[in-house]
């Protein structure tokens, strides 16, 4: 992993500012470190030479001034770094959000993206505030210190100049040697760590089979193996810190002894010797710090790289027309749809007529392409081949947003937003008057739900509509569809996906009644497993059966 990802610099302008500030602070801090060492060695040497408090007052006062300046700089650098970090995180986050919300909705793990955009990016705080400034210091301070030591005592400078490069060299060697080994062991550790979670989660099952006590011994055994494996990893992982520490301290010890002897033989004065002694550890300190902070900060870098990976994933583009939304019979002419990464087409050369003003019931087993059919009608998916026409006009010539404004869609598992009930119903029609919302809610059998909410339509439904049951959420989605149907400029296309799957009998009955009202007299498509729906629909409803192209074995998941 690179210590400084160039994509991070390009993507977030705040990072460039931050680097400038960090470099400035680093330079000032380097100057103060050198100044403090010089002042201290001077005071001690002059006092040894017999100088009193009055003569040294100015130098000692300068030490206090340096202390205050270093503190101010430490505070300012940290605060500035955290401010830059907040800015950079915001820039990355919003780029990510704009990128993934653009275009057609894609199948992806939303939970993972949310974690990445919040907690994942927060790990960048450590990277910006702790690691980057230290990296700057790790470059500047050793060079500056070495230059000063070289000016004061060239033999010490040689010792430092020889040992300093050894540190990164040895760390790289140790790192290369241990990398493969630690990777293997971390994989084992993850597996063993997962075992405890597995056993605790399965405790009711273990208890039921009277195995809880026997399993306790196994937990102990696995945990002990976990400990041994961890220790094996740590013995190796701590080696690089060991090398660093030994080299740094040993070098200081060698320098101390060397200047001691030169002092003894009068080839060096006390002030210079003290200056070298004080500065020598300072050359190694930033390297040790940067090593210690490396791992914590790499989490942030990993998160940033995940963001870049997500940014590289481009949405499929739609043929975007500009025409107004046509009306009339919907026809599919030889439509084939392929989902990326799957061999079998989701729809294979499908010809279909959806007559205007009537309901078409599309049944078939899972995987037959029912949802894909709704997807192409919503223009979420583009057919690989074939055409869709509406009243004879090609759907691809129609402006996508205008077309969607004439569709009313009720998905299988509708998403309710952390907003009021009225806001959720108004999703597609934010300016619809309250009477229209009430009418839509009534048609969707929501009246009893509204009555049960503490603030009626103004009640916030919580994250994912947590306040409501699955059946109630389905009815809110129906109310959305009723409202859209009422506001649509042309007679809308009603699309329903498994409206009653997984609902208890009471809710299913209410949803069935509302669906009956919604499809009446409108062009509608109902996709469902359940052929019993045929009995609920008007007599002129069309029945279409889609078959999965490949044989389906029992016990497949939905």
């Amino acid at each position, binding site marked *: 992993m690179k210590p400084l990802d160039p994509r991070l610099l390009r993507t977030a302008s705040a990072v460039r500012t931050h680097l400038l500030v960090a470099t400035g602070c680093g330079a000032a801090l380097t100057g103060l470190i050198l100044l403090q060492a010089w002042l*201290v060695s001077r*005071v*001690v040497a002059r*006092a040894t030479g017999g100088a009193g*408090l009055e003569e*040294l007052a100015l130098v*000692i006062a300068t*030490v*206090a001034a340096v*202390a205050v300046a*270093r503190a*101010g700089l430490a*505070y*300012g*650098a*940290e605060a500035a770094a*955290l401010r830059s970090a*907040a800015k950079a995180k*915001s820039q990355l986050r*919003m780029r990510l*959000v*704009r990128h993934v*919300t653009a275009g057609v*909705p894609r199948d992806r793990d*939303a939970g993972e993206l*949310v974690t990445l*955009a*919040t907690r994942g990016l927060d790990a960048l705080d450590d990277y910006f505030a702790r690691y980057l400034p230290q990296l700057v210091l790790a470059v500047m301070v050793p060079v500056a210190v070495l230059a000063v030591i070289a000016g004061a005592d060239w033999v010490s400078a040689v010792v430092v100049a020889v040992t300093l490069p050894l540190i990164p060299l040895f760390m790289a060697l140790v790192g290369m040697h241990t990398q493969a080994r630690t990777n293997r062991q971390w994989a084992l550790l993850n597996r063993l760590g997962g075992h*405890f979670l*597995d056993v*605790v989660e399965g*405790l009711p*099952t273990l*208890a039921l*089979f*009277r*195995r809880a006590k026997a*399993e306790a011994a196994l*937990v102990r055994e696995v*945990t002990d193996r*976990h*400990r041994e494996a961890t220790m094996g990893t*740590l*013995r190796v992982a*701590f080696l690089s810190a*060991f090398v660093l520490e*030994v080299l740094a301290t040993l*070098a*200081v010890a*060698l320098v101390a002894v060397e200047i001691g002897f030169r002092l003894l033989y009068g080839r060096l004065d006390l002030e210079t*010797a003290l200056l070298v002694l004080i500065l020598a*550890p300072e050359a190694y300190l930033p390297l040790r710090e940067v090593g210690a902070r490396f791992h914590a900060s790499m989490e942030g870098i990993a998160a940033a790289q995940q963001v870049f990976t997500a940014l590289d994933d481009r949405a499929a583009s739609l043929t975007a027309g500009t025409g107004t939304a046509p009306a009339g019979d919907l026809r599919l002419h030889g439509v084939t749809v392929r989902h990326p990464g799957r061999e079998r087409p989701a729809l294979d050369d499908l010809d279909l007529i959806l007559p205007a003003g009537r309901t078409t019931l599309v049944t078939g087993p899972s995987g037959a392409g029912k949802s894909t059919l709704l997807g192409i009608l919503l223009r*979420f998916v583009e057919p690989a081949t074939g055409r869709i026409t509406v009243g004879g006009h090609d759907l691809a010539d129609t402006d996508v947003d205008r077309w969607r404004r004439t569709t009313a*869609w009720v998905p299988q598992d509708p*998403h309710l937003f952390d907003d009021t009930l009225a806001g959720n119903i108004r999703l597609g029609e934010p300016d619809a008057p309250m009477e229209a919302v009430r009418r839509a809610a009534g048609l969707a059998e929501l009246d009893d739900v509204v009555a049960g909410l503490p603030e009626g339509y103004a009640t916030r439904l919580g994250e*994912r509509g947590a306040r409501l049951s699955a059946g109630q959420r389905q009815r809110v989605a129906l109310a959305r569809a009723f409202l859209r149907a009422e506001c649509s400029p042309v007679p809308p296309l009603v699309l329903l996906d498994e409206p009653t799957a997984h609902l208890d009998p009471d809710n299913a009955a209410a949803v069935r009644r509302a669906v009956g009202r919604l499809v009446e007299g409108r062009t509608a498509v109902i996709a469902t497993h*359940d052929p019993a729906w045929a009995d609920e629909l008007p007599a002129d409803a069309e029945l279409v059966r889609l078959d999965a192209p490949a044989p389906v074995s*029992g*016990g497949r998941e*939905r």
Partner: protein
Amino acid sequence: MSAARRAVRAHGVVRMLGLARPRGGLFALGVLLGAVATASGVGLLALAAWLIATAATHPLVTALGVAVVLTRALGVTRGVARYLERLVTHDAALRTLADARDRVYARLAATEPMRRFRSGDLVSRLVSDTDATQDLLVRGLTPPLSALLVGGGVVALSTALLAEGGLLLAAGLVLAGVAVPLLAARAGRGPGRRATSARAELSTALVDALQGAPDLVAYGAMDRAVARVEAADADLTRTARRDARLLGLGAGATALLAGLTLWGSLLLGVAAVSDGRLGPIPLAVLVLTALAAFEIVAPLPAAAARLGAVRASGERLFAVLDTPPQVRPASDEPVPAGPADLRIRDLTARYDGPLVLDGLDLDVPAGAHVAVVGPSGAGKSTLAAVLFRFRDAEAGSVRLGGTELLDRSPDAVRAVVSGVPQDPHVFDSTVRENLRLARPGATDDELRAVLARVRLDLDLDDPVGIRGSRLSGGMRQRLALARALLTDPAVLVLDEPTAHLDPATRDAVLDDLLDAAAGRATVLITHDLAGLERMDHVYVVREGRVTEHGTPAELLADGGWVAGRPLSRSTADR
């Protein structure tokens, strides 16, 4: 916060440290090694200062001999001691973690059915809380103790050289090592809280925009959702930028204290040299010791910043460890095996609030299949928990033949009553290991036979994945039933065995479950009316009591809860 409450909260940390007591010897060794490592660093500079200041007086070479050897030795001891300290403390912490896991597991096993800890999120948090003990011990226990040891030694040395110098150093170290970290942690709490609430708002807006993307795009509302994310992001960023001012204070204060202590040492030292109370050599040692001493307190801010999180972990951990068992001790005398009638009379149970079961009567004749249906929250799952002896009933009786099950220990009852609990757990192992849980001595032929009975075509060596992720929902339920059949119970209890299955799978699974249970007393608990016509008797439970019961035909005819709800069966191909 009241003083009493604060005492309780501090308790969490203290009790977590208490977990480490059996490993006291190892930790003491770790503290000692850590002290040696830190002392080597500070001592190296102090000794070097003495060496140089002495050399400046041009003594004989032999006067420096010991110091030279010691200086070189210190150059090595620091790295070696630090390496050993890390190994020893990690080993001790991992051993303590193993003890903590033992205790958590044993307590959870006794507090079944762990209703409160059942959800995956809570369980994984509990597991990471257990792991937090390791973090506390490695970062929170040994560094402060080592710092205390070395800090004391360094202050003693400085005091011996110059009393006021030692006092000054002590004050500086205490302020930088204790006061500043604690104050910084406290100052960080406000920003932490503000960031958490701003982040929660952002997180909700993000969930809505990403998870609700299809709904938003279909209804043309994505722009508004992104605008909401943008507003939440701006709010979080503003809060973080404002609070950056507070969070930098710790770093600044530590640097200030270190610098001012050095300044004070110079001032006091030079004055003492002028007075003739201090020689030039001790002056160099005093000043360079003050310069190096702040390395001792460097790891403490990180320890203090963790205290809050560790305390919260400790509270959750000890809430589990302090939970009393859910089942009173009872007789281990075995329940006679063999077919018998199950009679439940006047069964009453509650969690902390109102009654969940309120005088429930139910009969399961030997060999009969009985369904318990009703809306969610009616008390059906509590009935299953009582039958499995996951929890005690408040009153009433559950008799199997002539035996009162509520007077027998959970393990005695589970030898004759078994089945499929809600969300049965499939362990991350092979099919064979998952089956042998129920009967450890079973032969492969027996296991294959039971798989055939539940119509599951799996190889015994097939891995099932984490939580059975390599199996479909229907296959997991079949595997769970196969497991239950292996125990050959007198009464089989199936708690919502078809939840989360699609209609076609649901019907196939239910048919096969009931076929496999033929001739065995079976209680099917469900909110779903599909397949009820295959049952011998159906009980409708609402608000903790039976409101109607009869054969499926009777219930359909009488116009009650079951009638009017279609017993819809998927006719889609299976």
